[in-house]
């Protein structure tokens, strides 16, 4: 039977919303599922994790070295914990998971499966390659299975559980070679891009950060999160954490607006799971219209304010 260890990503005492989706993947694999919280004091995060349906127990690994989620600090601790009989170690497919999981796999001497999007069995999964333009079904070799879970492919489990919380100890040492300096987090009152039901994204067509206000205003009117194409981020209109796509955030909102975005395959990779895609572009031949559920050819600077007033 599988014994699965899910690594809890957290910040400021809050469990990352992606962990409930990793739980969904773990539940599909089946077996016993534990969540590990590495923190200075993980009690608050553990209490949130204990509520997730399907969790057998939550392990808190309290250690002063865990004050920042550094791969070099976490990977040896996770590898040691995994050695206590776990068959699977799962991480959310976030920048945290992508940073820590491969280092953990290397410590365990096993390959890693990135971006699990469907579970066929305890050892067989689907994952996207080529920016999601092909899906491969893979079979992992024997040994501990380390994987990251593509969050847009799973629905969060319910918060109906009441798992036991236990302290666990592993040797943890802060590596002398890595020091956390600072995190400049974008604080926003808007819905989080990765969990928002509606997302409005703007592209290069916006032309400046001042003009991006058109996108923000419309998003605020309909209560949407805000995203952007790489071109809009590269041009400095908006910060990097708003990039949607192959190498940015992969999202699955019910409603997605692509405004002044051409629809490059790398951008589309991030929105394949959106239920309804609306495209607004002045070029009738823009590739975005090939994937849009509803398309409108027009100048965004007149269309978007009008849409805002009518929704």
């Amino acid at each position: 039977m599988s014994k699965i260890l899910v690594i809890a990503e957290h910040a400021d005492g809050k469990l990352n919303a992606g962990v409930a989706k990793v739980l969904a993947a773990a539940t599909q694999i089946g077996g016993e599922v534990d969540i590990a919280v590495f923190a200075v004091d993980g009690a608050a995060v553990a209490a949130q994790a204990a509520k997730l349906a399907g969790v057998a127990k939550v392990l808190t690994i309290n250690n002063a070295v865990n004050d920042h989620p550094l791969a070099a600090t976490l990977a040896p601790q996770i590898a040691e914990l995994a050695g206590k009989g776990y068959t699977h170690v799962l991480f959310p497919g976030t920048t945290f998971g992508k940073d820590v999981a491969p280092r953990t796999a290397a410590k365990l001497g096993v390959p890693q499966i990135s971006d699990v999007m469907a579970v066929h069995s305890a050892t067989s999964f689907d994952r996207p390659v080529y920016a999601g333009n092909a899906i491969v079904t893979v079979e992992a070799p024997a040994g501990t299975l380390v994987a990251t879970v593509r969050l847009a492919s799973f629905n969060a489990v319910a918060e109906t559980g009441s798992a036991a919380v236990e302290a666990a100890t592993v040797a943890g040492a802060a590596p002398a070679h890595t020091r956390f300096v600072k995190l400049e987090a974008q604080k926003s009152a808007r819905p989080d891009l990765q969990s928002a039901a509606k997302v409005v994204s703007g592209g290069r067509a916006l032309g400046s950060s001042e003009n991006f206000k058109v996108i923000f205003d419309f998003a605020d009117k309909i209560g949407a999160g805000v995203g952007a194409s790489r071109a809009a981020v590269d041009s400095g209109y908006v910060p990097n954490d708003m990039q949607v796509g192959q190498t940015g955030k992969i999202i699955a909102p019910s409603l997605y607006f692509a405004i002044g975005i051409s629809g490059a395959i790398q951008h589309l990779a991030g929105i394949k799971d959106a239920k309804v895609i609306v495209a607004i572009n002045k070029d009738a031949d823009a590739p975005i219209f090939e994937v849009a559920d509803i398309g409108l050819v027009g100048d965004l600077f007149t269309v978007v304010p009008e849409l805002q007033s009518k929704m």
Partner: protein
Amino acid sequence: MKAIVSVKRAVDYNVRIQVKPDGSGVVTEGVKHSMNPFDEIAMEEAVRLKEKGKITEIIAVTIGGAKNEETLRTALAFGATRAIHVKDDGGIEPLTAARALAAIFKKEGAQLLIAGKQAIDDDANQTGQMVAGLLDIAQATFAGKVDIEGNKATVVREVDAGLETLEVDLPAVITADLRLNEPRYLKLPDIMKAKRIAIEATTLAELGVTAAPPVKTLKTTPPPSRSKGVMVKTVDELVAALKAKGLA
């Protein structure tokens, strides 16, 4: 100070991938290949560090079959001072690539590995982190900015929440994100000059590396296609279409 840059040959980012009808993979024959774009960014960063006098030697390394030599030529045209080809015709697991890179890193006494954060074919995003784990050295992934002073690197990382700054002591692994730099346009004289530099060949066996147990690909399928949408002419029609879907 020596830096290693790992480079991979991949289907060009402009190519629209076709899945073979029998599900055995994607069509790669007769399709344009180039250096993985993230590796170009890694190469560019190494060359800039060399131009600033922070490093003295850049060793480009690739692992794979004969065709990968063209990627090493591109690396040399960027300004790599040496190129190492680890010849292997099997499917290379990231862990196998990481073992080979770690072996070369040690053998060469390198201080820095700069790798692309992911290759745009398998999109695995693993190799750099694995090398750091195997060597027990510092890692700074998804770098948007790198400053090297003495044996310290200050790296600004692009993370989900925003920008994280880490300070790492060398030796270290840095993986390049999109905004680290804009790779230069290669000039013909540099491309010609690169053709005359000898490429050093080696094998996994020579490096003392055993291949990782393979993750088997059982089949390859195209993603579910989206059904054809509708085009509307006015904002009113757009609002009506959204209302019809219960979205406005």
